[in-house]
């Protein structure tokens, strides 16, 4: 089926602007050195910061619902940026899937060794528990949704290699989990928009709970998105 798509003669790629430019390497090297010099000089003469934002964060930390300043900044003070980021991750999955929709190839099933399957049977639940711990501890200590989600995604990839389980190309369950983070985030935002006249402005007694709800959705969504991106990259 691939030979139908492939043209008879390989089409010429659009020439990069520097194709055939004989002095590309030295010119790029000189430019990179100049860039390094300029940036280093700028870094050297940087004035000592007046530290206004960290003080602001430290003062309003008790009102944010969590005790970890990074989590507070990500999910409370700059929660709109995190919403956009989760949406960008979803868009990447959509785009990657659209780019391979016509390839029509399936994931090759590898026959796993029984040792690997037994190893994953021990390790898999442990990784899930550690991911849940990272998600929960994000309120007091370093942790949070991104770390837990990436750990879960890596566990799914490891499980795919160890047990030979190949996911179907598309399924409703997969789409639901992928969209869960964005939808939950937007739902909380709309809820706060209707309750108070501000989007994603958590009421202070509810802030911790709302943050945990959003983080759970984002964890599952990030794990699914990373896993799907990996399977798309690997598809023959």
């Amino acid at each position, binding site marked *: 089926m691939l030979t139908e798509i492939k043209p008879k003669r390989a089409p010429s790629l659009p020439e990069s602007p520097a194709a055939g430019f004989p002095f590309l390497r030295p010119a790029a*090297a000189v430019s990179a050195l100049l860039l390094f010099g300029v940036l280093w000089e700028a870094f050297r003469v940087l004035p000592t910061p007046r530290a206004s934002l960290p003080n602001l964060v430290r003062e309003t930390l008790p009102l944010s619902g969590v005790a970890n300043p990074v989590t507070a900044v990500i999910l409370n003070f700059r929660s709109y940026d995190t919403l956009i980021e989760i949406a960008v991750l979803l868009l990447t999955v959509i785009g990657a899937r659209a780019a391979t929709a016509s390839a029509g190839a399936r994931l090759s099933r590898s026959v796993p060794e029984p040792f690997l399957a037994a190893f994953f049977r021990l390790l898999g639940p442990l990784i899930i528990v550690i991911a849940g711990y990272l998600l929960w501890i994000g309120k007091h200590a370093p942790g949070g949704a991104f770390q837990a989600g990436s750990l879960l995604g890596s566990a799914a990839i490891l499980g795919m290699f160890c047990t030979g389980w190949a996911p179907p190309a598309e399924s409703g369950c997969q789409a639901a989990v992928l969209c869960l983070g964005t939808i939950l985030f937007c739902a909380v935002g709309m809820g706060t928009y209707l309750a108070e006249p501000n989007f994603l402005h958590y009421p202070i007694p509810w802030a911790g709970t709302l943050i945990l709800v959003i983080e759970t959705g984002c964890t599952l969504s990030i794990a699914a998105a990373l896993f799907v991106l990996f399977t798309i990259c690997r598809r023959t």
Partner: protein
Amino acid sequence: MEPSDLYGSVGIALFALGIYGATALGQFMRQVLALNVAGTGVFMFLIAIAHRAGTPVPDPVPHAMVLTGIVVAVSATAFILVLIGRLRDLSGSSSAQDDRDD
């Protein structure tokens, strides 16, 4: 020397190295690798700036920005790798010029 000065300089050096690789190399995969190195350099520079803020706890706003940046960088890398694979499928070549031994 403060650790933040050292790591800031290393970040700038990685950025320059990655920019050189992204412009001078021919194969797309190597350009993507170089761009990732440049991105890591930018993150290191940002966190070095956050560390030298002088407060007992480092500035959490650049930490949040870099955390977002890491996730967006990996998703952009995954997307461009998919595109490289499709380009290779459709046209049989995966470098800007047709040099195999770049």
